């Protein structure tokens, strides 16, 4: 299927494109209420006919000063607030904050809880990428893949619900472990889901990834080179889409990621292997496709977790008993993890009391979004939703 796509005309590739659609300059306000801005993002576009000469993102519409709240509550009370930052990847956010506090206080995590954490953060990665892929299809005018993605996501949410009772804001991973042990039969139900889910990824590819129109809309659009990606501090699929094989789970393994065997997908040039022609490294399609491939890798990790997870230890439980009484030393820590959107970092500074002196979240969406000003230049108006969608930003975490 991929081979039937004609190569893009090379002359068409060099920006600025199509000089004949220029008329006169106009400022267009896109958002904050706009279906393809994925929340309350406002972008001011300086347009000239169909051409966008400049796009300036304005953020802050969802600002709740989550960092100030962090200075007023104990760490275990702050965990639910982290859910509400990146609300599509609550588990990963809980994990990032929990790891930061554990590193600062030296709190031990039970072995079984570590496996549960990795398993759920990978399941959440799949759930988050399903939303990213589905809504990206919506942005590009493909409605059906969205329904397929949400069908599978629903099953994942059922799994989360069975473990912690919540479907979106879990607070399941907490300081010192997880709040509750796995429900009965979870291992069987989860492996059943994985067996069902894995072939579905091919369906998404056939429905959306290799769709001719989709490739035309996203291939060679919003290209970010590897050097620029690092310069702008991009991370996650946005960085790897630019051909940078950097993943914190490999680069600086946290939790127990060094025990698992998995690959890190990166953006590849079009025409090779399964990559359609017309795609270049660092474009919207590459960023999108990295997410598809990451789901396959997550399935691998979860299978290994299910295989290796130790049995419940009655005495130890799944959460450190000191999680609510722990005092933060007069010290500071910065801890990063690989969230579905990129590197989520928490800077936590203690002052000897039980309440942190400062909590700062380095949101991957926040850092990834700053490249929009650079990538959304001298492109077509229709490319703007393609570029924003491929960044997969969650405004709750951009604005915090």
């Amino acid at each position, binding site marked *: 299927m991929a081979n039937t796509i004609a190569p893009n005309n090379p002359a068409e590739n060099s920006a600025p494109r199509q000089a004949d659609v220029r008329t006169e300059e106009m400022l267009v306000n896109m958002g904050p209420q706009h279906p393809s801005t994925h929340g309350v993002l406002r972008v001011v576009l300086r347009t000239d006919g169909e051409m966008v000469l400049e796009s300036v993102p304005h*953020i*802050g519409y969802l*600002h709740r*000063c989550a*960092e*100030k709240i962090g200075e007023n509550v104990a760490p275990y009370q702050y965990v639910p607030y982290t859910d509400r930052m990146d609300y599509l990847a609550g588990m990963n956010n809980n994990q990032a904050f929990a790891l930061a506090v554990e*590193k*600062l206080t030296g709190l031990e995590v039970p072995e079984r809880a570590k496996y549960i954490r990795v398993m759920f953060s990978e399941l959440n990665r799949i759930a988050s990428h399903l939303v990213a892929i589905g809504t990206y299809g919506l942005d590009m005018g493909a409605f059906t893949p969205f329904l397929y993605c949400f069908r599978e996501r629903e099953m994942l949410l059922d799994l989360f619900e069975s473990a912690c009772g919540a479907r979106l804001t879990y607070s399941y991973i907490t300081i010192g472990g997880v709040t509750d042990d796995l429900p009965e039969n979870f291992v069987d139900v989860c492996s059943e889901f994985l067996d069902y889910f894995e072939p579905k990824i091919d369906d998404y590819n056939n429905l959306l990834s290799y769709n001719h129109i989709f490739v035309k809309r996203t291939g060679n659009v919003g290209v970010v080179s*590897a*050097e*620029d990606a*690092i*310069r*702008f*501090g991009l991370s996650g699929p946005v960085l790897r889409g630019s*051909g*940078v*094989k*950097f*993943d914190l789970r*490999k*680069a*600086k393994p946290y939790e127990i990621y060094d025990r698992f065997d998995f690959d*890190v997908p*990166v*953006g*590849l040039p079009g025409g090779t292997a399964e990559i359609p022609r017309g795609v270049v*490294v660092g474009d919207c399609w590459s960023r999108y496709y990295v997410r598809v491939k990451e789901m396959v890798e997550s399935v691998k990790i979860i299978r290994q977790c299910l295989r290796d997870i130790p049995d419940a230890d009655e005495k130890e439980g799944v959460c450190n008993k000191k999680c609510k009484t722990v005092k933060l*030393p007069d*010290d*500071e*820590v*910065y801890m*990063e993890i690989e969230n579905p959107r990129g*590197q989520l*970092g928490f*800077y936590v*500074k203690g002052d000897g009391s039980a309440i942190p*002196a*400062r909590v*700062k979240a*380095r949101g991957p969406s*926040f*850092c990834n*979004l*700053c490249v929009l000003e650079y990538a959304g230049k001298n492109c077509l108006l229709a490319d703007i939703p393609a570029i924003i969608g491929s960044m997969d930003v969650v405004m709750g975490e951009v*604005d*915090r």
Partner: protein
Amino acid sequence: MSFEEICQVLKSQFGDAIEETAVDSCRPFVTINADKWSEVAAFLRNDDRMAFDFLQCISAIDLLAEDKLACVYDLAAISPVSSTQDMTYLRELAVRVVTDRNAPQIPSVAHVWAAADWHEREAFDMMGIDFPGHPNLERILCPDDWVGYPLRKDYAHPLEYHGIPGTTEHELKSPRH
């Protein structure tokens, strides 16, 4: 290259600009004089021994007891770009730049790391630190006409903003403090 070795190089290069090295911290950090920060940052970015090309985060902190504000820069050097080999962090470094609380000024490093642009705007918005040399230092999360810097420890939140009450009737009747 360990933290001590990095500090050694910095000390031999910049001498007094390196004010303090907190080796025993959970995550060691080096304190650098704000006046020299711009030069040190360029050195950290461009020197072959350092090559800190990835700015992870800038966290503005309020040191109320010392009557200071500070920024903490978390830097990392990434191994050469590869699409086949797993890349890693070669080294990491945390830098603290302390500034006066009454006229807080830290030179901008947005020209050194493009990622610093938004981080510095956030620090300006939330903590009120001025970054001379920044291309577009405006509030980023709060509205442009917001008064005060919310993350300062002595911040008092406004009681009214464009007709929107900042406190509820219930709170007025039974104040929390």
